[in-house]
């Protein structure tokens, strides 16, 4: 079925190029467009490095499209995607961060014969919207893994701290964490913070400190980004419960890696953003030239970084800036 759909898509592309008034293969002259995350986040800087390195390796030109102002992403991303589709790209590589607005557009694009490859977010949607594949992680599974690790380590009351409430992808991580903890018969607390304070480490520290004081049975914390992870460590220290509260996080930073090395942070979940970019371009190259592509979901995470592999990760981070998404 998938192959039939792909062949159909290819046929539509071929038909479109034959119908074109420009002689030769006009549709194939369209650009390869990437609609992906904001480059102000170290995470997406690593995704872009993957795109760049693969583009150089395979001799491909592409254009990276992203928002610069992150305050209205829910409406900005569908608009950026719409603009990208209207440029009649040869291929679209999309992070489907906001499915409600983006999924109908992706369906339009695939129906019009534009090959679409999804990366990072959209793991439950790509099979329905006609995309040729998906490269990335499942945020629910990432949270689930964190919950399993903490439950196994003996955490009885786990706190999931969400610094960006309202972002569906990020909330899935908390959902996964809560599910794994509850399956193991543990309790959980869900905590958010006001939107103005998402980038203020001091405000996050005081929020987590207050929560730990209000609920003194909390003995595990899961943060959804490396910056709040540092705040969580400081808060645990300030309530004088260092060593009693297990802290783990999603995503990496150099500070987080150093904290794993020193034993303060239990683990960080890496979804290997560089691979999401690199593999997307590689698949695009092989699909456009040979019609080949992986069948099914290409998983890039979660890779658990803990005391066993943190030294190697730090070494790579030093020698190849930006590849690990931890700066």
């Amino acid at each position: 079925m998938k192959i039939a759909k792909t062949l159909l898509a290819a046929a539509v592309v071929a038909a479109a190029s034959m119908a074109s008034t420009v002689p030769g293969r006009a549709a194939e002259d369209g650009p390869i467009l990437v609609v992906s995350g904001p480059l102000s986040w170290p995470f997406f800087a690593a995704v872009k490095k993957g795109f760049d390195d693969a583009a150089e390796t395979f001799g491909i030109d592409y254009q990276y499209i992203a928002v610069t102002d992150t305050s209205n992403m829910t409406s900005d991303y569908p608009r950026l995607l719409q603009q990208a589709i209207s440029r009649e790209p040869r291929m679209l590589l999309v992070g489907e961060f906001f499915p409600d607005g983006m999924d109908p557009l992706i369906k339009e694009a695939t129906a019009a014969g534009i090959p679409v490859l999804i990366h990072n977010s959209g793991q439950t949607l790509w099979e329905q919207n006609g995309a040729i594949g998906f490269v990335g992680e499942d945020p629910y599974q990432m949270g689930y893994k964190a919950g399993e690790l903490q439950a196994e380590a003996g955490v009885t009351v786990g706190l999931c701290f969400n610094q960006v409430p309202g972002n569906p992808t990020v909330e899935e991580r908390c959902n996964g964490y809560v599910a794994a903890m509850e399956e193991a018969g543990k309790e959980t607390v869900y905590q958010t913070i006001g939107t103005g304070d998402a980038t203020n480490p001091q405000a996050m520290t005081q929020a987590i400190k207050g929560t730990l004081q209000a609920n003194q049975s909390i003995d595990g914390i899961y943060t959804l980004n490396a910056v709040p992870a540092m705040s969580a460590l400081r808060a645990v220290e300030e309530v004088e419960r260092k060593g009693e509260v297990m802290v783990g996080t999603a995503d990496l930073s150099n500070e987080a890696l150093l904290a794993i090395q020193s034993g303060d942070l239990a683990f960080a979940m890496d979804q290997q953003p560089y691979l999401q970019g690199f593999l997307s371009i590689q698949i695009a190259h092989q699909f456009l030239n040979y019609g080949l592509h992986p069948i099914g979901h290409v998983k890039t995470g979660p890779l658990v970084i803990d005391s066993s592999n943190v030294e190697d990760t730090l070494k790579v981070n030093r020698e190849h800036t930006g590849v690990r998404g931890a700066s």
Partner: protein
Amino acid sequence: MRRPEAGAFAAFIITYLFFALATPGTGFVSVNGTAGWLNLASELGIVAIPVGLLMISGEFDLSIGSTVGAASMILALGTNHFGLPIWPTVFLALAAGAAIGLANGLAVVKTKLPSFIVTLATNFIVIGGTMGISRLLANVTSSSIVASDSAKFMFAARWGQANISILWWLVVAFIGYRVLSRSVFGNWIFATGGNLDAARGAGVPVQRVKISLFVATGVAAALVGIIQGVQWNSGNSTYGMGYVFQAPIVVVIGGVLLTGGYGSVMGIVLGTALFGVISSGIFYTGWNTDWIQLFLGSLLAAAVLANNYVRRLALTSR
């Protein structure tokens, strides 16, 4: 009761008592709990004071958010990617803050455009510039900071759990108080914000007043960026974005008139402390946190209303 800070003082006492009673046994009123909300308030407070003076003179500065982030990135790029010692990068960051303030001030007085728009534009220009330059130079938009012991002491020392930022806050508040209430320049600030034409007619150098305050605001924002950067060992271009509106909010809670010409440093300090108590205390209650912003907003509205009522009372009782 005639003083601008009377309303903020009353609101602070009521709010503090409210949280003290609502959070029994959680340590909110303990030394460590107090250090917590003071740490939070002090970083905002350092930049809120010059922002407040600027608002008394009749102008806004919304570019503080990105200046905080830019200062922290200057430290990160300087120490981590160019291997410079930290102190030169500290002065470079302060100079960058001053330059941003000077640009704001010149743009506002020369073009006569509303500072609300001019500095909002600067806010985007500075964060965009910070990200672009960081990426160009080092291919990052956040990075580690390598600080010396002396720099760590000056910007991140802790006594118990109280950060040195609280001392910086007191120093800035003292300077602000001396300038506003004990100097000719302070009278000029009130005059500029109270009635611009009359002030100009009376020979007040209104342009110099505004430009100086914009520069002071830029330097204070850079200082906050340095403090946050050294404290968290990390520069990040998005640090401080929350301050863009939090600073004017605490200034208004502190009794400064949005239209200028009226206010006090003590009031701004109390307004900031109130904000610190609310945004830290709410987590000690252990309530469902989805409602936090609704609660925060309602408390702020109540504080401003109470404040306004007290001020009207004060002004009519003359």
